[in-house]
């Protein structure tokens, strides 16, 4: 029992928690941007898969790591463009299109993987991002290694939250994005195209989701596996609701969730097989549902979320 408590004060636990949080932070910010503009993006799971592969494959084929991140973002933006084209100007069901994008992006990724590496049984490895210690700060006990001795992509994840928050709340573009999700007619009245804002938001958001996927292959692990996203995308959708569509709160949610995930792995080792390991693996998903129940009552959805908008309509 005491051991279970002591885990919380070890540096390795918090290092793991922040590492687990990083891909979730990217993808949650991506989903948040889409939903703030009024588009639910259920393509997230597939887009993360595509990003994980695109980033890894770029490096495997000889590119450097940052080109890999860029290629992943581009791949994500392309699926975002497809999602946005079908849901924004055409106004098709965001649920159905999102599921379609998830199926398409993941199966296309697996197809290309098999095509590129036909005879491979164990996935080839790349040299992933290495931890970059920030001098001074990284030697603070517990907090230092957790926050200041991570890979550059983790720093980028935290920077993304700051940038997304700044754009959303401090720039005219952010005002337009938020208004597109709340009151699109008002955006149109300003002479700004709702279609343009929403499509741009979905593309940018999808690019972030793909970078979240790429974190897994380029920073956390060093190769691409089938089913490696394993529900992380759906959890990010829950995290957006949990964070009531605010970047800061969503970041907090992602870290809490990741800490719990890192904790259950350690508890599992402590329990010594008395409790079936599946119970521990279920906990993150059950926790997401619980979080949704707790928050849903006072959740204030963007009012125009999932409502297609046509020019000249109110």
């Amino acid at each position, binding site marked *: 029992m005491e051991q279970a408590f002591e885990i919380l004060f070890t540096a390795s636990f918090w290092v793991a928690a922040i590492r687990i949080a990083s891909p979730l932070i990217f993808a949650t910010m991506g989903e948040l941007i889409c939903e703030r503009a009024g588009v639910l993006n*259920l393509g997230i799971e597939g887009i993360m898969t595509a990003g994980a592969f695109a980033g890894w494959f770029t490096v495997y084929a000889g590119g450097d790591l940052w080109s890999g991140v860029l290629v992943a973002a581009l791949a994500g933006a392309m699926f975002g463009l*497809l999602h946005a084209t*079908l849901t924004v*100007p*055409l*106004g*098709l*069901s965001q*649920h*159905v*299109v999102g*599921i*379609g*994008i998830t*199926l*398409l992006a*993941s*199966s*296309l990724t*697996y*197809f290309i993987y*098999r*095509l590129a590496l*036909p005879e491979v049984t164990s996935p080839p490895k790349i040299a992933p991002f290495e931890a970059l210690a920030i001098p001074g700060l990284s030697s603070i006990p517990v907090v230092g290694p957790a926050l200041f001795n991570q890979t550059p992509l983790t720093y980028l994840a935290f920077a993304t939250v700051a940038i997304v928050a700044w754009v959303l709340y401090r720039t005219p573009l952010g005002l337009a994005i938020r208004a597109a999700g709340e009151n699109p007619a008002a955006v149109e009245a300003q002479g700004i195209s709702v*279609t343009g804002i929403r499509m741009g938001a979905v593309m940018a958001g999808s690019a972030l989701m793909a970078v979240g996927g790429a974190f897994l292959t380029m920073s956390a692990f060093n190769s691409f596996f089938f089913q490696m996203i*394993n*529900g992380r995308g*759906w*959890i990010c*959708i*829950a995290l957006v*609701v949990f964070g009531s569509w605010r970047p800061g709160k969503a970041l907090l949610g992602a870290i809490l969730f990741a800490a719990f995930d890192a904790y259950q792995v350690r508890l599992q080792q402590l329990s010594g097989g008395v409790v*079936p390991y*599946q*119970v521990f*693996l*279920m906990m993150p*998903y*059950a926790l*997401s*549902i619980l979080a*949704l*129940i707790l928050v*849903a*009552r006072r*959740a204030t959805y963007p009012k125009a979320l999932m409502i297609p908008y*046509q*020019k*000249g309509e109110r």
Partner: protein
Amino acid sequence: MRLEPKSAPPLGVTLLFPVAAIAATLVITSLLVLAAGASPFSVFYLVARGAAGTQFAALETLTRATPLIFTGLAVAVAFRAKLWNIGAEAQLYIGGVVTVVLGTGALPLPSFLLIPIIMLAAMAAGALLLLGPAVLKTRFGVDEVVTTLLLNFIVLLFVSMLLEGPLKDPMGLGWPQSSRVVAEAQLPRIIQGKRLHYGFVIALCAAAIVWVIMKKTVLGYEMRAVGHNAQAASFAGIPVNRVLMKTALLSGGLAALAGFSEVSGLKGNLTLDLSPGYGYSGIVVAMLAMLNPLGVVASAIFVAGIFVGADAMSRTAGVPSYIADVMVATALLTMVTAILMSRFKVRWK
């Protein structure tokens, strides 16, 4: 760009759009086949031959279509009322669990009693599983898309736990699999020595029953009204929440039958690979059928044919069989676009 509603086109034109969607899918996937260094014509020929070219292939397609009919019906029923059930996969597995719990000797009954009891129990379990998200949706406003999706992962882990614990086959040489169901709990084969079983016939009956419910009963009318506009339906005195509950029960029950028929009719026991994603493919099946229960039968056979045919093609032509999943996903997106085009005129200005 604007969308303007069209006046109802003649039936011929309406039927033309699904065909156009399939044609568009073939063109798009041709590019991938070309990328794989094969000829699209020979690949599609091989897929078609692998799906329906021989008696063996055709029976295999119908066998594969059986669970897809059930999950397709489950999705069609739910989506009609705009209840976004993405959890057919979990409901399928729960149906499989109930089948092995009751079917491996717990109930010493003759077939004609045992099979209906198992079917009803499986349906009840699947129905209850979807009732949870439906209650969360109506009572707490929790989006059912995320809850049903997350439940897929929870249920699969739960099944894994059962298969390594209480349901583990003592004779299974350590594999995580259940014991085989007794002979009385097995659906017979339609043709001796072939894999096609009476689950297919039950699936056809289910489609007919669901069609009657959707088109001829008050519940069906209420489901459509709720799906069309929940506020207007509520204003017209339809008890929206109760309709959503009934929809959830029906949808979850139908998806669980897929698990029942796979265990009882085909596999004989429960393993973690009982479904290669039939719950998710059910969404495609339902959308290709434009949510029509009878159309589900046709689209399930079509989708099953693509999977069975692609497997056969992959062995001979060297194109990865994932092309089947790509085709199915592309067909979903082209189909929803085609349905839109059949209802609206696109005006550029």
